[in-house]
């Protein structure tokens, strides 16, 4: 419909109108800073990542083994029973090739966010991470991948202690 209209009714505004103060407006920069307590489950998860380990938790009632760990089973509404050491390998459940950064810059080489179903979880559940060391054209669902860890001295207790996952 709009293709038939040469000029929309009204007053056109240009960037210079704002720059030169012909249009009045207000701006505000938020100062919103938080320091979230990681707590029992995520606290241990992060400290294990710092050691180069991936850990999950098991519920003996529904027999699930899940990662990231949580203090209680959301299905059974009871505390989780055991901590479980998990391998740092898994399978790509789903992925995307993302050509925009989160601050909206265009990328020629895409970021590859993926959910990686970690071996040893049950039913298989994944962690959100990025894929790397891989040709974007060759990434596929079901691809086997492994964590690429930062060197120990660079690890801080963060999911970024894993740099990314790469094909194996």
């Amino acid at each position: 419909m709009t293709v038939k209209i040469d000029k929309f009714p009204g007053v056109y505004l240009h960037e210079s109108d704002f720059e030169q103060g012909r249009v009045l407006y207000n701006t505000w920069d938020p100062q919103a800073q938080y320091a979230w307590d990681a707590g029992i489950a995520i606290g241990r998860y992060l400290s294990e990542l710092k050691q180069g380990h991936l850990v999950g938790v098991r519920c003996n009632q529904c027999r699930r083994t899940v990662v990231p760990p949580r203090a209680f089973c959301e299905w059974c509404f009871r505390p989780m029973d055991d901590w479980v050491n998990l391998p740092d390998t898994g399978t790509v459940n789903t992925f995307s090739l993302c050509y925009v950064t989160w601050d909206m810059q265009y990328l020629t080489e895409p970021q590859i966010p993926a959910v990686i179903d970690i071996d040893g979880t049950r039913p298989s559940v994944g962690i959100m991470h990025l894929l790397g060391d891989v040709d974007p054209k060759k990434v596929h669902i079901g691809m086997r991948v492994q964590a690429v860890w930062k060197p120990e001295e660079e690890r801080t207790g963060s999911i970024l202690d894993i740099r990314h996952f790469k094909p194996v």
Partner: protein
Amino acid sequence: MSQEVAIVGIGYTSFRPLTPEVSYKELVYEAAVKAYEDAGLDPRSDVDSIVSVAEDFTEGTSIFDEYVPDQLGGMLKPNVTIPGDGIHGLATAYMQIASGIVDVVAVEAHSKASNVLTLPRITAYAMDPVLNRPLRANPVFIAGMEMNRYLYTSGATREHCALVVAKNKRNALLNPAAAFGAALEPDQALDSEMVAYPLSVVDISPHADGAIVVVLASAEVAQSLTDVPIWIRGIGWCNDSPSLENRAWGRAIYAEEAGRMAYRTAGIRNAMDEIDLAEIDDAYSYKELQHLEALGFCEYGRGGFLTADGVTEIEGALPVNASGGSIGGGHLLDASGLRAVVEVALQLRGEAGAHQIPGVETGLAFGWRGVPSTSGAAVILSS
């Protein structure tokens, strides 16, 4: 009101300045487990619906309702998160049951105020971005201005406000869940450091972390679960205009109207005669006096004199904030109103422990959303 609704389960954590050992999810889970145990319910099979109150800006997470279900056993159930006071959440849960669409609803509210590093800046975000925020004043000035005008027009004094501080901090000593109990003399309160004249540092309730879950049920379910259902007899809420320029600085009209609605729905004609105790917002000391008057317990300007006469003490004719309120217990952001509900319900059950008031049957809880809001909610509970 049309359909009877009762509180059948109460769970809460202790309220503390810092809770570094648990995440907010783990904090809420503790309160939820206690509430469901108290109600004798399995949340996965017996709870129909979840209502929570949370403000994205204080959580630091957008669309916060996404993060609510797990810790309440609410997965794959109706969930709604309201950016309001805990009593707004209670009202929503009440309406869900009264309308007949569900029988059992859990209401949740929490505070992780300690995790918000720039809380005054977040509060400032509640002010008009064009007219007020550019002044770049800490929003506590709003409480200072309100207190100043209130003292000017009502005849209440800073001494009266100091009595409120001393009373609530002393009451909190009897409440193991309260964060800021102290044996503070009114004189010491008067001498404390000025923050936003005439508001001094002890006139301001300090923030605390904590979580609260209350389970509501329809009459039939409630009577099958417990011998001591606490009935919601009336509920009301009101917002005034937000304008800092044009508001009635000396009066809490939102509280007058919220109270009027609660009294109308409860069939209460004389608050002082028919209500045995009140837990009412004391985010700032003068607010307890202002809200006491607005809720019709006395004439405008008489709240301070009532306090000086000892009427609002635990042993008085109308105990107010026997729990210690926010000044003694810690301000829980939007969970503060739900804490007031919990305290009234415990009192009516006779389970308030060392600060139990003997022989109470009807109580009022009132929450206010804090500066710069004119948003209040009231509920009348009866055993």
